[in-house]
């Protein structure tokens, strides 16, 4: 057999014909019945099955066979059995007969077969709704447990490894500085640059300092750090906890009497929630430096003018609003990171899904929170 003949058009010469002798259908097979080309169609046989009481095979003209013939015969046998037609396999090669018997040795387990096709629309809507409700209940239970754990932490009654807390603070704080520096600096530059083009038209270059100062402290500092930390730390939390679930490490904690909520989730949550405002403050500062570079380099402002204008524009209120936002963002990111990790399924793809979902949920939650806070702060006149 030529190995190169893999093209579908090179279908092997094979033939099928039928003879009917007193209610016995004899299927005559000849030529090469192999997997080359396509699997032989069963429909022809199926049409002729009605009326027959017995089905037999004549394979004297068969030149070669492999699983192609086997699949064909297995299907025919199954169809015939379903119609209570006797199957006589004495005409097929002994090897084929033994393999078909082997395939039929263990009856199909009815519950093992997954349901064919999609369930009807209403059933799907129902299933999704139940899953959603279950997920919401799970998330609320997690939130409740987390709140209790934080309360115990605040009253020094929580059980966790202080060393873990230090590690997570290190991870969510100092180690994030380089990327926060880069992104914040560029945010400041972009804010200043976009503003500069407009302000230059009516000679208001000096207000670039106000724009950057207010923009960074109120909004951009907190939001930029949130996006970075969601991708960096939130995803890492979800992946760490998801993997620990796969390797049964979380089970080991539970079984040995350590509540995973306090041992695993609490230190991560506390570390990120505490570090976010600090990162935000740092980001504000670096953003303003970025703005100053544009102001001084492009608009010919002096350091002193820029500095004075910045201090005039900035108020403690703006900074506090930004810090409060970053605190909210931090707790949302930590919450979703840990929630998705703990809810993760037990496979490698489930851990990947958990990390993705942690990033998506936390960024969406941060934006939604920002919207709500914008309205609330406006009403409160802050």
């Amino acid at each position, binding site marked *: 057999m030529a190995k190169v003949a893999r093209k579908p058009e090179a279908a092997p010469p094979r033939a099928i014909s039928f003879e009917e002798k007193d209610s016995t259908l004899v299927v005559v097979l000849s030529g090469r019945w192999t997997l080359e080309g396509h699997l032989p169609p069963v429909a022809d046989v199926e049409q002729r099955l009605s009326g027959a009481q017995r089905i037999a095979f004549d394979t004297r003209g068969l030149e070669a066979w492999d699983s192609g013939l086997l699949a064909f015969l297995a299907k025919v046998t199954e169809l015939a059995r379903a119609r209570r037609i006797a199957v006589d396999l004495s005409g097929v090669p002994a090897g084929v007969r033994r393999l078909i018997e082997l395939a039929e040795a263990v009856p199909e387990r009815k519950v093992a077969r997954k349901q064919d096709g999609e369930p009807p629309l209403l059933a799907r809507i129902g299933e999704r709704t139940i899953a959603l409700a279950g997920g919401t209940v799970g998330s609320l239970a997690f939130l409740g447990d987390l709140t209790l754990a934080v309360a115990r932490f605040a009253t020094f009654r929580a*059980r966790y490894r202080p060393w873990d807390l230090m590690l997570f603070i290190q991870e969510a704080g100092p180690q994030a500085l380089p990327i926060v520096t880069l992104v914040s600096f560029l945010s400041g530059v972009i804010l200043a640059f976009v503003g500069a083009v407009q302000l230059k038209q009516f000679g208001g270059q000096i207000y670039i300092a106000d724009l950057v100062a207010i923009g960074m402290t109120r909004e951009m500092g907190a939001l930029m750090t949130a996006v970075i930390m969601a991708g960096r730390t939130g995803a890492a939390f979800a992946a760490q906890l998801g993997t*620990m679930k796969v*390797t049964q*490490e979380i089970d*080991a904690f*539970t*079984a*040995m*009497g350590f509540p995973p909520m306090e041992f695993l989730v609490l230190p991560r949550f506390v570390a990120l929630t505490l570090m976010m405002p600090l990162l935000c403050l740092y980001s504000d500062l670096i953003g303003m430096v970025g703005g100053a570079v544009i102001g001084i380099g492009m608009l010919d402002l002096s350091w002193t003018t820029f500095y004075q204008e910045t201090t005039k524009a900035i108020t403690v209120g703006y900074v506090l609003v930004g810090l409060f936002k970053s605190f909210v963002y931090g707790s949302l990111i930590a919450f979703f990171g840990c929630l998705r990790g703990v809810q993760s399924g037990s496979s490698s793809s489930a851990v990947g899904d958990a990390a993705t979902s942690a990033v998506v949920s936390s960024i969406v939650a941060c934006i939604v929170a920002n919207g709500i806070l914008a309205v609330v702060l406006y009403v409160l006149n802050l």
Partner: protein
Amino acid sequence: MKAEEHGGNGARTHIIVRDLTMAYGSFVVMRDLNFTISRGEVFIIMGGSGSGKSTLLRHLIGLQEPAKGEIYFGDDNFTKADEAERQRILRRIGALFQSGALWSSMTLAENIGLLLEDYTDLNPEEIREVASLKLALVGLKGYEDFYPSEISGGMQKRAGLARAIALDPEALFLDEPSAGLDPVTARRLDELILELRDSLGATVVVVTHDVASILTIGDNSIFLDAEASTITARGHPKELLAHSPDPKVREFLTRGLPQEAAQR
């Protein structure tokens, strides 16, 4: 509630399972399981793949809630216990998971030390000493500062066993201890389990389908049958091999071979 009221036989009885039904949602894995485990025996939970052996173990160590029924440790009702009571019961048991499940961010000494740190008043130096001793017991002296990812699968299993016996538990739960080990290592682990049972006096509950191991270490056993969804045989494994009326159980214990060949 006293265990005796539930058919236990006093001090010898350690764990009692009453009418336990296990389910995932509406899918019932096993129903109406009833058995008692005596103090100091090696109790085997056997059955084919997917019969719910590991699920049963997860119920026994409180990782899953029974759909119905109760589990007692001595006189304590584990199923109905409140959180503090649960913690108290869990503190007296040790568990080895199928994959070892060592905490991957900690060294072996820290894995064992965490339990001692939290449940005893030992100082760090003493904790380190006890951790070294436990590692030495399972043949891992000198591996204190290795991380789980740096040692082989067999060593992880043994380290997991060292962690399980960290607090000198009264009951030890082992999930497929010999799975994934070569025959020699598996047999050594069996010997280790017997040795620990004898020296610590602990009750050992083993989930396994390794027939060699079942016949070597088992004092008592139950056989879970996936199709019947319940226990179809119980007793000493060797007795079951010789006299079980259930052909399925005999087939399992002889690995489907003629009996003489299986017994060797």
